[in-house]
């Protein structure tokens, strides 16, 4: 009995092999399908190459806070990226798809989303994460699974150190802090500065850098204080700052708190004091929330002067979501650039084989993102060196007549 089953089975196998060979390409010689990249043919394993079947999509995973206190950032960046995916041209007939998962901005949430994405072999690249803490927790997971990361907003200096997969578009906090500190002392001629921050890794790191640079340049830092993020009244801490007589306040943090500071400043007597903030503050939201009090406030930004591409993006964004880019967070443009840069890297790497599958060799894609050069994005030319992709430094903007304009002084 056993022998008979064995014989039938072997006949079936041989027969099916013949069928498979005949059903394949006419030029095919037999069991070898041509066009499969060498690395993938040697290791037919989803951890080495992503094999995307016809009819499936090439997935890019976005991870950021979609609910909770900082949901505006995740929703804004993912919106810009959904647009970028929607506008993208398919590669070899394969459409792109953006997956959106919620990290709630936390490290634990980031690790959970990272584990989810690496379990899906069709996810080839990661956009994000949005916050530095969440990014730091997810890097080891993606590195083990060879998923390249390109973040629109994670700016903590040490993120690009000690791994081979993390890249980002925004300039680091160190570069921004150094530029801001020098600008305050040399260009604006401030001698007494109060430094405030929101206690978060981003805001605090930036504030410390500004304090250090400003002090080394010869200025005096009269106050260095943290405030509790998420509140809508900072008059007490600003009263304390006022008592120390600063000429300018540097705030390291995001626009909601910066707007509250701007609103509270005249009430506590800080009328002639300059408010200077960072790229977390830059954007129309700050002006909307602070109204007239926003006049004369400075912020740094990676945003280039307006270009045809930028105008087209603004029109598209406003047409789809009803608001201009930058109204929820300041990273709408970066989000758009991230997905387009990732798509261009995937386009370079992806190979269509004769069996109709699309092969993406993971190591090659990681390299393609790591050595991305000369990609023209809205935020400037994107060329990655050791994880840092934006070669242009920050630009300084000032609010004049209810709009951000590039600061001339």
């Amino acid at each position, binding site marked *: 009995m056993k022998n008979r089953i064995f014989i039938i089975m072997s006949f079936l196998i041989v027969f099916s092999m013949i069928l498979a060979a005949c059903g394949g390409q006419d030029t095919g010689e037999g069991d070898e399908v041509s066009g499969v990249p060498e690395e993938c043919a040697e290791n037919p394993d989803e951890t080495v190459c992503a094999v995307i079947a016809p009819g499936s999509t090439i997935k890019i995973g976005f991870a950021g806070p979609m609910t909770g206190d900082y949901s505006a950032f995740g929703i804004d960046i993912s919106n810009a990226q959904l647009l970028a995916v929607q506008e993208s041209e398919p590669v070899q007939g394969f459409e792109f798809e953006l997956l959106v998962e919620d990290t709630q901005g936390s490290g634990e949430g980031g690790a959970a989303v990272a584990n989810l994405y690496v379990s899906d072999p069709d996810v080839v690249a990661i956009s994000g994460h949005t916050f530095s803490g969440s990014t730091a927790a997810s890097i080891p997971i993606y590195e083990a699974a060879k998923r390249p990361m390109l973040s629109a907003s994670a700016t903590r200096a040490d993120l690009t150190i000690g791994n081979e997969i993390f890249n980002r578009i925004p300039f680091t906090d160190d570069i921004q802090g150094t530029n801001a500190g020098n600008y305050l002392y040399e260009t604006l001629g401030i001698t007494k500065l109060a430094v405030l921050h929101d206690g978060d890794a981003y805001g605090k790191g930036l504030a410390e850098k500004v304090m250090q640079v400003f002090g080394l340049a010869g200025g005096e830092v009269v106050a260095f204080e943290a405030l509790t993020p998420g*509140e809508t009244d900072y008059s*007490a801490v600003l009263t*304390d700052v006022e008592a120390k007589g600063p000429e300018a306040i540097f705030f390291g943090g995001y626009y909601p708190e910066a707007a509250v500071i701007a609103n509270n400043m005249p*009430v506590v007597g800080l009328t002639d004091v300059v408010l200077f903030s960072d790229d977390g503050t830059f954007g129309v939201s700050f002006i909307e*929330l602070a109204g007239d009090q926003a006049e004369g406030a400075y912020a740094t930004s990676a945003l280039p002067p307006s270009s045809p591409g930028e105008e087209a993006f603004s029109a598209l964004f406003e047409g789809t979501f009803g608001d201009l880019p930058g109204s929820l967070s300041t990273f709408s443009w970066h989000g758009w650039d991230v997905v387009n840069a990732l798509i261009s890297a995937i386009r370079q790497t992806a190979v269509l084989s004769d069996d109709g599958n699309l092969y993406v060799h993971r190591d090659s894609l990681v390299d393609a993102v790591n050595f991305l050069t000369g990609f023209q994005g809205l935020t400037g030319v994107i060329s990655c060196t050791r994880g840092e992709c934006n070669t242009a430094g920050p630009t300084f903007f000032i609010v004049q007549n209810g709009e951000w304009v590039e600061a001339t002084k």
Partner: protein
Amino acid sequence: MAELEISKPRGRIPTFRVIKIIIGVLFLVFVSWRLFTVLVVEDIYTPATWVRFGISGLVIGGVYSVIAVGYTLVYGILFMINFAHGEVMMLGAFAGYFVFEAFNTIVVDPASELNFLNAYPWLAVLLAFIVGMSVSMVIGVLLEKIAYRPLRGAPRLIPLISAIGASIFLQNAAQLIFGPKRRIYINPDILSRSAGWTLNIGGEEVIVTYTGVFTFVLSILLMIGLWMLVQRTRMGRAMRAVAENKETAALMGINVDGIISRTFAISGALAGAAGVMWGIQNGIIYHYVGFIPGLKAFTAAVLGGIGNIPGAMVGGLFLGVVESVGPAALGIDFQLKDVIAFSILVLVLIFRPSGILGEVLSEEKV
């Protein structure tokens, strides 16, 4: 009496008393050392600065009080903490926001483009409060019907969990409905947030904003109104009876469920008023805006003695002032203001477990 004292269990109570005294002495030494350093040695603040700290604290304290009373009312009757109270406040703030937005677009005099908001500012503010309070009142009553009434007989922890769930639900519902964007309250021009009376203190000008005075005065008026309602009206008497003992109150012909519903209605209306006040004073609202004030007001309610209306008032103002003056007076970073507030809560609970104005609880309540 003498016999009673002798029969008291000895041993544990004296040790606790000793610890209490040690903590008290350490606290006093620390506070006086810090006060001496800040006020005498460093002396960085002018009188004007102290007045500014005080104003900032009183204004926010007033709002805390109004929210805290909502916690206290519900606790007094049901002995449960309504953790969704901050979200009820947030929804009231949104309701008031839409009223202001609507009035801002209605133009009454096309020649000067005068809109309704600035033509009849007090009427607009009154309507915003009425709408905000009504919306919050309805939400409060619905919350009780849906989330708490089915759990009336359950152990105390169960409605508490339900309350936390309701709080998360309302936050996320608000995010879905209104979006995650922060919105700015458009005040009538007479209540402009940066305008106010100017005081001259020690040669320095201190601005007392109109919105600040408005918020503070209104919170005091609401408190007095509530006090009258609870102490002087038939309904107030029924509420107190239900708080004392539900079964006996029911036997006396009081509709207990009806009274509980009305308590939630009053508590919700106060939260709505607090929400609109918050919007007028601070100007920025979003779906998460009720959470922190809710927690603070809960602290204030415990601080003043939970279940006690004047206690919530005193607790709120005290907490507001401590948050604003405390870090400055003790020379501590302002980010640690919550540490000061909660340390004081712990101290109050050690020395007066029932709160500053805490009522003497009947055995059943304890």
